[in-house]
């Protein structure tokens, strides 16, 4: 399952000799710690974003919390089975996101949310780059939505992404076959990837 790796292989995303690395971290090898961080950092960021209920500007801090916690456990020798390390990293990341969600919920419960109309007027000035980023996203989505042939397909995206409906709920609401639902999502993701590539946004791995 795992192949022996050198740092160059790790940099290219190849497999790691996790059992050896885990032992090295336990023995105090700083290079091994660095390799572990390199291997899992991006995945941790991605997972936290995936499990957050709301965008959070402290994402980087949360990811650092997770990676430090994982390293601490490795240093203490608490991860006995190296094959369990990805699962442990995953669990730590998800728990960190859930903690942020609970903190956010507590803040919302103690306060009143703004009404939809109030919220449009209580604003904060973010850097201009945020406004540019927001406008760019809206343009990308407009381009994507214009490419979807049917209004019902756009409904699929709204229900799935904005209303968090399950595939079953979406299919039931729109009297749609599951296969059609899958095709719509696949088409939207493929088209969005092309739109991002067109404006020069490449994936991190290319």
């Amino acid at each position: 399952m795992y192949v022996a790796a050198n740092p160059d292989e790790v940099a290219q995303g190849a497999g790691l000799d996790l059992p050896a690395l885990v032992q090295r971290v336990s023995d105090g090898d700083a290079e091994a710690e660095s390799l572990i961080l390199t291997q899992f950092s991006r995945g941790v960021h991605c997972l936290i974003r995936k499990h957050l209920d709301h965008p959070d500007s402290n994402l980087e801090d949360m990811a650092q919390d997770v990676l430090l916690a994982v390293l601490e456990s490795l240093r203490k020798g608490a991860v006995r089975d190296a094959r369990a390390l990805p699962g442990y990293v995953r669990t730590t990341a998800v728990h960190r996101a859930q903690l942020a969600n609970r903190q956010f919920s507590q803040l919302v419960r103690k306060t009143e949310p703004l009404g939809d109309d109030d919220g449009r007027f209580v604003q904060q000035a973010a850097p201009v780059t945020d406004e540019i980023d927001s406008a760019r996203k809206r343009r990308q989505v407009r381009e994507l939505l214009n490419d979807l042939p049917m209004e019902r397909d756009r409904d699929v995206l709204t229900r799935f992404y904005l209303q968090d409906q399950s595939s079953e709920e979406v299919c039931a609401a729109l009297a749609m076959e599951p296969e059609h639902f899958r095709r719509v999502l696949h088409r939207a993701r493929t088209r969005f990837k092309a739109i991002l590539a067109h404006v020069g946004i490449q994936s991190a791995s290319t």
Partner: protein
Amino acid sequence: MKLPDFDPMPSWLEDVWLERYLNRALNQEESAGFEAYMLDKPRLLDLVELDLALADALRADAGKAPSVVPQAAQMEAITAAANNTPSAAKPRSKWASFNALAASLVLGVGAGFWAAKQSISAPTIASSPPRLVFDSMRGAITTNLNEPGSAASTMYIVEVAVPPDAQVLSAIAVVNGRDIALQKPVVSSDGFVTFVFPVQWRDQSTLELKWTAAGSSEPLQLVFKI
């Protein structure tokens, strides 16, 4: 369905699992297993991040700002909030609640940006809204700058100086005794957090900000009369 034991899986099998994961078609155990699997797989992370970006872009589009100058119905809603009048309940997804809580409209301070916004949205934006600036660098409110601005403005700006490395923990506006949570602001490079409030809130509200500065474990909370 159990995740295969071999790592890595062939690409075609990864794609099957990935699609089911992104479509929320995996059960909890399957999702957890796949998430652990994909943690160090750049190709899979690319596609998960793409899906997250698509969701973000859809939300940005759904939460796009209306015209800056409030319409009559919006003014009534703001007045109702200020007067503690209950508003009609609406069913919301968690994202709609977030959009209501954390308004997405961004305003810049500066004639050029205001002019640009004016050309995009409503034509009757006041060119210089009133501005309150608080300096809190020493842990207490040391100065308070009050720029009167245009009497026709329907909103006013509140700026608070914080340490540039500050991390804002919470921002709450208290309006007529009602606590209204605001989105945690981003500290600008020159060390300010900026809010825009409707003029109806002026002189009858407070802003409670809590933040931590680098090197300090104790959060600092200040209350500003706005």
